[in-house]
């Protein structure tokens, strides 16, 4: 008979083996493989002709104007969506802590869009922002009397396409809202009662109690939405927005359109990783100065 401890070890490994295998095979290996590929000229169609090119892919990326433009678009998108979606989510979370009837229904309604598939949402918003038949332009025309010729063309014009995509992204604020809601509900009522006795008004209470108490959650949400903002793909790929390439969409096009440059694309992916890592580092640095932890 096996010793009890050996048996426990065997059981432990038996249970974690499927998960670890999957993680190593589908997570760690592709990451290391892409790191290797980033130093090669690997093409999708000719894997047997791969050659080591050193840092050439990285140096080329810094000279690539399309990469710079795509990175700029992704940066603007990420910053805008991080700020706007978190402000809206905090606002909604605070409103939904009010003692009003059917508050659970409101929470559900606000949350549902965040669980819809991104492709569905983008297609829906293409209709909403259609310059001719979309509800937004119908509204602007009917309510504000803007002439048809002067209505914005939204996704069809270079100067409004990115703005439209940012507006579209706000639709999914519900996911963050639920996290903020949990944070707001966790703040002890005694702080507000004490502040009320001291004569603090609602805004002062928000500024000096709610925000500091929520700061760990704000940190988490901002970090996650920044990473998601840099990685934006579906919105750019499906919307057909005029002259608005995103970094990851460009990466996809380079990989899956001739001449299928997997090596170069791997280098671009690692550059994006380095950028996100640097931004995350900045966040963690600021975390020490700006985020308030109870303990």
């Amino acid at each position, binding site marked *: 008979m096996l010793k009890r401890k050996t048996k426990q070890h065997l059981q432990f490994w038996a249970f974690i083996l*499927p998960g670890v295998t999957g993680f190593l095979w589908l997570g760690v290996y592709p990451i290391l493989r892409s790191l290797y590929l980033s130093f090669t000229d690997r093409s*999708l*169609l*000719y*894997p047997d002709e791969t050659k080591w090119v050193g840092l050439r892919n990285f140096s*080329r990326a810094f*000279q*690539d*104007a*399309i990469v710079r433009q795509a990175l700029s678009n992704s940066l603007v998108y990420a910053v805008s969506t991080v700020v706007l979606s978190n402000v809206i989510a905090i606002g909604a979370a605070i409103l939904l802590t009010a003692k009003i009837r059917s508050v659970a229904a409101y929470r559900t309604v606000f949350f549902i869009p965040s669980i819809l598939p991104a492709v569905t949402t983008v297609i829906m918003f293409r209709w909403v922002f259609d*310059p*001719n*038949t979309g509800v937004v332009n119908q509204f602007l025309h009917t309510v504000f009397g803007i*002439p*048809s*010729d002067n209505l914005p*063309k*939204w*996704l*069809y*014009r*270079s100067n409004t396409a990115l703005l439209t995509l940012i507006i579209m992204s706000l639709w999914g604020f519900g996911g963050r809202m639920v996290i903020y809601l949990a944070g707001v509900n966790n703040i002890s009522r005694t702080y507000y009662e004490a502040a009320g006795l001291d004569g603090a008004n609602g805004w002062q209470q928000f500024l000096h109690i709610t925000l500091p108490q929520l700061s760990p959650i704000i940190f988490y949400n901002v970090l996650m939405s920044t990473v998601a903002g840099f990685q934006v793909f579906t919105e750019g790929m499906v919307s*057909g927005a*005029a*002259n608005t*390439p995103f970094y990851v969409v*460009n990466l996809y*096009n*380079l990989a*899956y*359109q*001739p*001449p*299928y*440059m*997997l090596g170069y694309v791997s280098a671009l992916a690692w550059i994006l990783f380095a950028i996100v890592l640097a931004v995350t580092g900045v966040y963690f640095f600021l975390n020490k100065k700006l985020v308030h932890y109870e303990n």
Partner: protein
Amino acid sequence: MKLVKKTVAFLLAAALCGGALAGCGPKTGDPDKTVTICLNMSDQNLFNPIIAAFEAKFADKGWKVEPTWAASGTVVDKQNTLVATRRAPSVILGGDVHLATQRRLLLPLDDLIARDDDEVQVDDFFPEVIERLRADGQTYYLSDYYQTSLLYYNKTLFDNDELAIKAALNANTANPLRAGPATTHYPAPDWNLDDLTNVGRVLTKRVGSAVTQWGVGATYGYWGEWLVHVKQAGGDVMGADGFVSLNTPEAIAGLTVFRDKALGVGSGEERWNKKISPAPGENDLGHFVGGKTAIGFSGHVGEWPTYKAMNNFNWDVEILPVGLTRREGGEFAINGYGVYKDASNPEAAWEFIKMLTGKRDSAELLNFGYLTPRKSGRDATLAVPKAERPAPQNMEAAFDSVLYGSTLPSYSYFQYVEMTIIEPSITSMLEGMPPAQAAAEATDNANKYIRTIL
């Protein structure tokens, strides 16, 4: 109880592992006896009978076909994924557009064609088709269909304005192709660019500031239409050196034609009244298929099944009008099949390609939106009197257009450069940037990029 728990846990774990392992890797038969190929899912009714016929013919050898069905527009992506993961199909789907990127994946077919010419009958293919499937003196694919640019027109809308159209045509006395008054109000081979523009203006209807009918439809977002105008003006998107050449006077003139159709000519109300096509984002009234657009320029043969399925949609086709300097310039894209260089059984792959590209019922191909590349198919189609043909009746134009078609640049980076670098400048032009500036911007940006990869 403990034993039951353990048994259930074991069975669950076994089921999970078994399920996961079952999903790993392709379910392929004996590679020496299996022909693999990626095909369009929506064409199953076209290909399944061919697969069945192949398997019946080679039942004694046990040869089977294992198609990987992929959604329309994703077939080549699927195939690329299989090639990249060293599971390349034995029959490679490609054609003239893919020749530059796929050539080193393919076996030259010339020896096989010569050996089996009794069955292949290579002289039965249009020479223009075979020529475009060759590189370095070798043939790499055989074809089952091609796509060509045509002028599509809505006969009902033309009939509504018969007199005005004839007047517009007859007013164009500078057209050297037409001696005397126009004999028909429908598009004809004697049309030139001015005829297209003038008739487009007649057929563009306005009520106040709203357009209720467009004279000519427009295609945006890729090279499908603007490149035709550029080529018909004597320019091209790329030169023989592999660099973009849109900044030539000819190419700029062609881009200006494209721009003017959508934005009009002149300024203010005059400009608005001279527009014949919707600009990007403008209401296109459902494009040609919406029934409120008189002419579709260039178009796609693949859309024929949709047009055919529509009740009371009275339409036909004509060869493209002569552009600024010539008629040549429409798209001519050829679908083809080649044998993968490391196929386990290239002979079986070749036999299947022969069946895919053999003499077929051209009418059946047309039902799927495909034009036969074989002379025998063309002759069979044209043997039916014009009046007895279903729309489009003018099949002569569909076959004649081959003479004026041109293929896309054969550089592997063309698609990326066009879609990612050139197309934004085309969009800027349609937002108001002068064509010369847009052409210079596109050329400069594209060539900077190309220099980094050459």
